[in-house]
């Protein structure tokens, strides 16, 4: 992944300082992304970062309300620099907090380091030890949620590096929900999400580490969120419904729900990116072909081709919106798609030739987001109504027929693909097979 921008470049890039008095001036990537997709989608911020950013907005806001109304939002950003530097910064040995907090106890330092290392948010592209500013904690408990930070001129600065705007867009969509009933339910759901871990030992430890770290003294207004646009199309309701469904899963542990919130945010963003790119090019909706591993080379090629088409459409939409855009900026918007999809188990791999598929985590997240906590849903309806109608993912014969894919690929291949998905979901405990004719999708069976 590319190195983070210098802050001046970043501010310019995200368009905050731009005095656009010449109409011919070429717009930068973030502006184009905002025009096309409502928010800033950038390769550096791909993967799990949109979910992390969303949770920052929800839980670090200035007021009590997790989804406040109004044009602007203020948040108190935490750096967690103490914990992150302790684990990932070799120069931490010179930090005065080694003496003040850890009492120069090397064994204690090592133990805490080991413990906190386990909490790292996965970096799919990372093969070597990351810099501390690159590594984040997974938000298992509320006090573990933190913002980007880095060291400059000897002091810690809390500023955007990897949280670039994907989560801000998701946040804006949630808090701008015209359906007030749903908005209220999501508010309540977020208030309860961490309630089970309020007194947990990890929360106590995370709270202590946060106290030793730099945070904003006063809440700050977030300009990126302010510039983000919501209520652009009906597909946003799919996201809101999904978040509500996840938050209402009474049976699931909070860790499972947090994973699902982050995964669902990422999945929805890439699906939205595809849809809005096609829309801006005047193209009709077309499904994404998922190869669930039934072993058909034809379907595998179709899925690989589909990914290339999606990426091509995103580039096409960006160039259409801003013909003069630099290729590096264009590619960053494009790469947000594959990197986010790959990190969240929606593509087969991070490197090499890629196709659409579902990891077990992705399937569990989709089930949590789309199947009500109490009732199950027949597998056939799940494949057609949820995966195809709602999310635009073609897996089975029904979707292939409805979208005309059967004209180019034999329908039986999609039947086998659907059967393979059923097998995977049965194995993952997400589907119960009652008989040949009745298979029910339900998360309850997984517990």
């Amino acid at each position, binding site marked *: 992944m590319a190195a983070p921008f210098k802050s001046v470049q970043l501010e310019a890039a995200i368009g905050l300082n731009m005095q656009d008095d010449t109409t011919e001036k070429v717009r930068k990537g973030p502006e184009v992304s905002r025009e096309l997709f409502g928010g800033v989608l950038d390769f550096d911020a791909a993967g799990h970062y949109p979910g992390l950013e969303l949770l920052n907005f929800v839980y670090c806001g200035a007021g009590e309300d997790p989804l406040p109304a109004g044009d602007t939002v203020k948040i108190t950003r935490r750096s967690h620099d103490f914990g992150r530097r302790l684990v990932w910064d070799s120069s931490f040995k010179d930090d005065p907090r080694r003496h003040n907090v850890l009492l120069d106890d090397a064994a204690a330092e090592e*133990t*805490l380091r080991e413990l906190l290392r*386990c909490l790292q948010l996965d970096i799919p592209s990372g093969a070597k030890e990351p810099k501390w500013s690159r590594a984040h904690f997974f938000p298992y408990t509320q006090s573990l949620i933190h913002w980007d930070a880095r060291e400059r001129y000897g002091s810690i600065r809390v500023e955007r590096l990897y949280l670039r705007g994907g989560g801000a867009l998701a946040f804006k969509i949630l808090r701008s929900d015209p359906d007030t009933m749903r908005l209220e339910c999501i508010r309540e759901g977020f208030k309860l999400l961490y309630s*089970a871990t309020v007194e*947990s*030992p990890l929360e106590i430890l995370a709270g202590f580490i946060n106290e030793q770290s730099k945070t904003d003294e006063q809440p700050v207004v977030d300009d990126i969120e302010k510039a983000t646009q919501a209520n652009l199309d009906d597909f946003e309701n799919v996201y809101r419904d999904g978040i509500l469904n996840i938050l209402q899963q009474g049976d699931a542990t*909070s*860790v499972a729900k947090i994973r699902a919130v982050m995964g669902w945010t990422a999945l929805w963003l890439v699906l939205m990116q595809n849809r809005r790119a096609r829309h801006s090019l005047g193209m009709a909706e077309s499904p994404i072909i998922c190869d669930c591993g039934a072993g058909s080379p034809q379907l595998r090629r179709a899925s690989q081709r589909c990914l290339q088409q999606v990426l091509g459409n995103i580039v096409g939409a960006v160039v259409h919106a801003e013909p003069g855009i630099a290729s590096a900026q264009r590619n960053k918007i494009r790469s947000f798609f594959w990197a986010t999809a790959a990190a969240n188990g929606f593509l087969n791999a991070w490197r090499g030739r890629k196709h659409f598929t579902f990891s077990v985590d992705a399937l569990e997240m989709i089930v949590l987001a789309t199947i009500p906590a109490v009732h199950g849903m027949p597998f056939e309806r799940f494949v057609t109504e949820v995966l195809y109608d709602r999310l635009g993912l073609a897996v089975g014969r029904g979707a292939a027929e409805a979208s005309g894919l059967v004209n180019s690929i034999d329908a039986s291949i999609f039947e086998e693909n659907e059967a393979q998905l059923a097998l995977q979901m049965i194995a993952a405990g997400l589907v119960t097979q*009652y008989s040949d004719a009745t298979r029910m999708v339900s998360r309850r069976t997984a517990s």
Partner: protein
Amino acid sequence: MPENKNPHVYRLVRFLPFDPSHDQIYEEYQVTSDSLNLETVAFRYVLDAADSGARVIVLTGDAGHGKTHLCRRVIESFLGYGEEEARRLINEACDGRQILHPKDGSTTAGALRIFKDFSEFAPEIAAELVEDSNTDEAVTIICANEGRLRAVLSSSRARQYCAELLKSFESSFDDGKASRDGRIHIVNLNHQSTAAGSDGQSLGDRALRDWTSGTRWRSCADCDAREACPINRNRELLSERAEEAAITRKAKLRLLLATLERIGYVITIRDMLMAFAYILTGGLKCEDVHRMRRRRKKGWQQAYAFYNLAFVAPDTLSKEQLKRLPLMQQLPKLDPGRRAIREIDERIVNQQEIFSHGQLDLQFPAPATSDEELIDAADGIDEIIGDPRNKKQRAIEADNVTRVVRALRRRAYVDGIGNDALDMAHLGFPYGADFLGIVHDQLDVPARTLLKKRVIAGLHHIQGLQFSEQTPTLHLVDPAFGRSMSGTAILAARIKSANVDLLWLSKKWGKSEEVRHHVKESVDWIDRHVVLRIVDQRDEPHDLLLDLMTFDCILRAAAGHVPTKFYEHDIRRVARFLGRIAQSTKATSDQINLIKDGRSQTISIDGSTIQVGAA
């Protein structure tokens, strides 16, 4: 001597779904002279329930469990009709709209209303019919698969009566009762086992006994092909009158089916009958045997030995044909031929006279390089090993050795050559004997305590914990560390060994002699699950059902290694269960307990300082 045709063989072949006249599979098409009437516990239960004032009896389970067959036999016994009349009524008057009255002259007074198949109606219509059935005095019998039943009882037109049925149905999974009040009975045939009962009393044993009994094979006695007939050989292998070892062989087949049921596969009676018809005949009829005897090179019969057919298809059947036998898709997973157990292999390969010479199912065609026509596998593999001179010959020799050794291993399993304790290892479950020890209640207190200790070690391994020495206390890590494998984690709770228990499923629901309408009394029952019960710090019990697969996974983990990809689902399920318990416990002090490198440590926070020390 003539080349005879045994009508019983043709009848068996009619059980195979790829035979053009597979009429034996469906109750509606059977004729009286052909029918195989297996007396099931469910049949007795339904009759007793109908006699003692039941309003409705729901027969649920997958297609093929014998719901229609059961209804037909209830009509005969409860209303006094003959088999043919009952079969006619099943075909003509069992859509839930008619009431069946006792046959004229019969002494019984009851009446029946039977819904033979809920799939014939839309869920809404079926729900209305169920609601209407609550108005008269007839005993209602409803047959439906589980999914269909749920769909009907929760459809838009379902009212109070349907809701009551649904509640009874759902509670039967939690409390293990077939009836809560004696009015509504749920007979869940998915709990019915083909391997329940010992001493040859399981459904499978009885079916095999009926099919291998002497009278049915009388016409083979003077058949010219008798000595070369694989079907007749299979019959001999499985008939205790012909060979005493048949009792052991049937017991091993029973264990095979029970193991499949214990890893979550539901075997219906139809599946079982089709599979038995297949392993007895291999899809061959008498004329096929006569033809093959004349045309094929000697030694072809071994591929049709029942223990080979159960795991590998012969070349006369295509994959597509075999796909129609559901059980045959599952059995190869348990193939004992693929598992090397040194103790067994040394005996069957090196030791002579384990098997007697000249048995038809152990005769293999000799390789082209050999002077002999046949190889007798009773002598091991020495005769196969020649002097291969190129890659092709080496590959052929390896194939031959593999085929013979696998067949010998299978035969060793069904003949019980090894120790009984190795049976489950033969089927791929090295810790299966422990599972059976629990469900058969064969463990004494020390054995149970030691097993519990191993299970606790397995649960630690699944959570990524490693201890320098085994501990009897169950440590639960914070759910955030559930996927971490670094060996360092915050502890959420410690559960003492006394609060961890392993039960068999029916025990969880109470003793069947004491609990009225216990599910165990409603069907042929085997315990398919072990219940892992953990009582948390607030004395609340948490139960996790472990099938054989998950149980094996935990004990493999206890031994130090578990293939995480293969057992991904099981590991997730167990980790989620432990995570839920861990999440429900509250921190009792400001001290944070953790495990690092197998040792307990504590973190103490004092104002703005933090200290770590030994626990």
